[in-house]
Every structure is written in structure tokens, then in C-alpha cells.
């Protein structure tokens, strides 16, 4: 019998790294498979796993792969500190501990019949990629699908192949905006929220899903509200340091919510009061 996170929620299960892909100079993707028998746990777009680098530590990382892919689970991580740097040194065939999937998910079902607006900033595209895979699989459930992606420079782009494929589709609008570039760049330059006034979605019949640095999300929400999108139709993900990942330790508390258990996806109007409090 395969042990799952549900049986022992604080015990990481051993997974083997099947493939390492460097997305850009500081961000890499791992394709993982259970070390023993059995298949990967099913997940919903927006959920995360606690990844344990043996002997170093454990960090929350969103699942960035295709939910329909049963035999591998993909995570895309940017190295910023102790654990993620140690993780970046792992190679194919090495082991990593996985606890999850944890947290809630993007409420894509609520968006049925509406336009789907996805706004990602930097590594924020990782937790949104499973949502895009799902939405394209159920393409007829939605009106327009628009992806606005903001990143630092063309060299910092993630998921180049997918972005190229999505851009070439006739049923999806993809716009990329960078903070700075050189003349070989033909996309937009500026803040990603500057694309909202002219993006092709119906503000009154749209569900917006946003993930990125908090300042970018606040800015984006402001532009969406200005355009007429209601606060109840805007969803954001929140990031806070985590320990247990299952609502026990209180490490990730933000206001009355535990990000790990009640989030990481929140409806904007439910999270808005806490976003403006500095100490939070």
C-alpha cells in the first residue's frame, strides 16, 4: 500500500528527480516521480507541495505541471535562499521529500461561461500554468482566455515553449511585458498592469486570476477595478513563510486566515483589508 500525505501529514514521501530543466539563470523545474511504487497524488491547479531537501529544510512550492499528467509532478523554483539554493544543486536521480498536495485551488469552475483573465508576474506564472493547461483542455467552458505576463527582461522569461505555443493559438491572447529590454524585443515594455485597459476581455463577465509579487498584484487589481471588474471576480495568491503547511503551527497566519489551509488562493475582497497592513 502506498503511504500518502493524508496518512502522515508531517512526513515527507520520498520522490526521485526524473528531470531538471533550467528555465532561466535562477529558476529551474523538477519533474518528480514517487521513489517507490504508486503514482503521484492528484492535485488541483493552485495547490502546492512542501518540498524537503534532505538535511537542509522544507519549503512550500506550487505545482506547475499539468494536472492531467499522472506519473510526474512538476515544480518550478527560483533560488533565493538556503533551501532553494540547496535544491538548485540537486540533479536528476537524486531524492527529494514531498508533502502534499496542500492548500486550496483556483476556482476555475466559477469562471465557467465567463472570460478568463490570467495575470502573472515573474515566478507567479508557475502556479498559474496548471490552470492554463486545464482551461485549454476545457476550452469551450470559457469565453476569451487572456494571459498577461510581466517579467523582468526577455532573458528572465519562464516556460518559453509553452508561451510560444499559447501565443500561436487563435483561441488565446497572450501578451508579455518586461521591465526593460533591448531593440531585439518586440513585445511590451512597462508594468504589466498597463496592458489591462486595452486587453480583450469583457470586464463585467470576467474572472481574473493573479499571481506575482504583492505590489504587482495590488497594482493589477487597481487597474482591473478601474476597468469595471468586480472585486468578487478577482482571485490572488498569497505567500507567507510556512512550517507545517496544514494549519497547525500558525506560522503563515494573515489576519484570520492560514495561508496554507485557507489559501494560498483568496478572493480579493476577502484579502484586501490585510494587504494594506504593513506588519502583516
Amino acid at each position, binding site marked *: 500500500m502506498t503511504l500518502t500525505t493524508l496518512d502522515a501529514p508531517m512526513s515527507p514521501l520520498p520522490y526521485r528527480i526524473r528531470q531538471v530543466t533550467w528555465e532561466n539563470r535562477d529558476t529551474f523545474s523538477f519533474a518528480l516521480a514517487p521513489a517507490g511504487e504508486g503514482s503521484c497524488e492528484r492535485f488541483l491547479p493552485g495547490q502546492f507541495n512542501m518540498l524537503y531537501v534532505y538535511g537542509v529544510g522544507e519549503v512550500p512550492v506550487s505545482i506547475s505541471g499539468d494536472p492531467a499528467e499522472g506519473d510526474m509532478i512538476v515544480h518550478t523554483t527560483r533560488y533565493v535562499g538556503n533551501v532553494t539554493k540547496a535544491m538548485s544543486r540537486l540533479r536528476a536521480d537524486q531524492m527529494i521529500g514531498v508533502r502534499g498536495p496542500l492548500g486550496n485551488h483556483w476556482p476555475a469552475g466559477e469562471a465557467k461561461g465567463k472570460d478568463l483573465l490570467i495575470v502573472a508576474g515573474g515566478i507567479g506564472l508557475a502556479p498559474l500554468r496548471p490552470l492554463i493547461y486545464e482551461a485549454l483542455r476545457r476550452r469551450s467552458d470559457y469565453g476569451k482566455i487572456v494571459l498577461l505576463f*510581466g517579467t523582468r527582461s526577455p532573458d528572465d522569461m519562464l516556460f518559453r515553449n509553452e508561451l510560444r505555443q499559447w501565443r500561436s493559438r487563435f483561441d488565446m491572447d497572450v501578451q508579455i511585458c518586461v521591465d526593460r*529590454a533591448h531593440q531585439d524585443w518586440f513585445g511590451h515594455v*512597462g508594468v504589466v498592469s498597463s496592458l489591462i485597459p486595452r486587453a480583450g476581455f469583457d470586464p463585467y463577465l470576467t474572472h481574473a486570476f493573479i499571481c506575482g*509579487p504583492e505590489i504587482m498584484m495590488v497594482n493589477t487589481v487597481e487597474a482591473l477595478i478601474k476597468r469595471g471588474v468586480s472585486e468578487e471576480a478577482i482571485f490572488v495568491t498569497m505567500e507567507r513563510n510556512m512550517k507545517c503547511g496544514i494549519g497547525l503551527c500558525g506560522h503563515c497566519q494573515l489576519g484570520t486566515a492560514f495561508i496554507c489551509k485557507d489559501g494560498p488562493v483568496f478572493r480579493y475582497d476577502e484579502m484586501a483589508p490585510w494587504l494594506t497592513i504593513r506588519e502583516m
Partner: protein
Amino acid sequence: MKQHSEIGAMLAEHEFLRGMSSKHIALMEEFTSVDTFHPGDYVFRAGEEAEYTYLIRSGRISIEIYDPQRGAVLLETIAAEKVLGWSWLVPPYKWCFDARAVEVTRMLCLNAERLRQAGELDHEFGYEFHKRFTGVFAERLRAARLQLMDMYGPLT
């Protein structure tokens, strides 16, 4: 050269001028022309006299700064319904950056000297025009500060 009545309609429907009185639209018609720029065409270059301000109808313009070490660095792109160029507002009326068409771009070109004169003669018009420009400044300054803070970069 387009007929003035067409130019008047294009001015009136541009987002930057939306809601402006027909008297003021008619005033601007007198010194507005339409021009098309092709990819790679420079609309203006840093240091040149700022003779026009531009209202973009379609296409995209990139604002660039040239650095001998780094080449041309793109700072911002400006798309349809936006306004391009403010150096005509402040002495010495010279462009601070380069502006280059990224796509085929059609713009309304308003003669800067005539605009300044019109603002001096008709303060109501001048105030209305400047008020709109202040909104553009605020938006661009905010965007520039966000870009400057490098929000996708490392936290440390």
C-alpha cells in the same frame, strides 16, 4: 494630407481628448496632421527640438535611451490611445529620449508651438490640456517607479 473634419473626428475620439469641447477640438484641428511610422522609424531622437506632441491611434512606439556600452535600452512602450512626448511642455523644448516605431504606427501630430500659443491665449483650453497631461505624468511616474524597484528581482 487628411481633411480637417476627419482630423477633428480623430481628435475627438482619442482617449486623451475624450470629453473635450468641440470648440477646443476645432482649435487643435488647425495645427494637427496625421502621420504613419513604419517599424524602425524614429519619431524623434534625444536632443532634437520637440516640435510636436503625438496622439497614437494605432501601433506601438518604444521610448529608448542610448548608452554607448549597452546600446539602445527600451524603457517603455506606448500603444494606441496614449500620448507620446511631453518635452514640448518644458523649456528648452528638446526631447530627452528616442522614440521608435515598433509596429506600423499612426499618430495625430499636434504642433507644439501652436499648442503653447493656444494655451496662452485661451487659458481654459490650456488648463484643460495640462490637466490631462498631469494625469499622464502621474501614470508614467508611477509605472517608472515600479519598474525601478525591480519587483521581479531578488528581495535582498
